[in-house]
């Protein structure tokens, strides 16, 4: 079974530029998460999808971050414009049916904003 796929793995951009991250969850998983992980910290939830519905986006900085999950499968997280403080690892995870189940994480996208 293929795991969670994320791309790109690394991204370096200048501040004020836009950036997008892509995630393909494990086949059949209804729940999809985007997390941000700063160096030396645990993951911080940005948004959770149940199928194509964003059921928890309370931690998503909506002035510059947006996300979508078309058709309830792949998801894209966008930052526009990026700021220096956005430098972090962005992790995508998926779970089977509900938020209470085991989460399977992708390798993450390491973003550096210069």
């Amino acid at each position, binding site marked *: 079974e293929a795991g969670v796929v994320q791309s790109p793995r690394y991204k370096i951009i200048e501040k004020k530029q836009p950036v997008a991250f892509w995630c393909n969850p494990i086949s059949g998983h209804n729940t999809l998460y985007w997390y941000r992980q700063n160096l030396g910290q*645990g993951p911080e939830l940005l948004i959770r999808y149940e199928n194509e519905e964003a059921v928890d986006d309370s931690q998503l900085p909506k002035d510059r971050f947006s996300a979508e999950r078309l058709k309830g499968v792949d998801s894209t997280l966008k930052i526009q414009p990026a700021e220096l403080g956005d430098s972090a690892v962005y992790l995508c*995870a998926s779970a089977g049916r509900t938020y209470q189940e085991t*989460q399977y*994480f992708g390798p993450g996208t390491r973003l550096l904003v210069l």
Partner: protein
Amino acid sequence: SQQGEEDPQALSIQEGENATMNCSYKTSINNLQWYRQNSGRGLVHLILIRSNEREKHSGRLRVTLDTSKKSSSLLITASRAADTASYFCATIAGFKTIFGAGTRLFVKA
């Protein structure tokens, strides 16, 4: 804010020794999960323990949960150099998943 708080922040042991790390949380939970993260990698799920369970085992891993003290512990027995990683607890409370800052374990060969 992060609900799960791991203790210690860092732990260095010799291969073959046991490693114990603790997680404390603030509110009632549905379940608690432990994850491992190797340097530069994604998180790997280790064990899920539900709020009505007190102990679970998986290979060399033993997890306990004390809901009265709002705490959990992860014990790794007979540690190996390959166990070197960061270990995170994640609490599932209501609709929220909250990770702690993690314990960094270093196992010396």
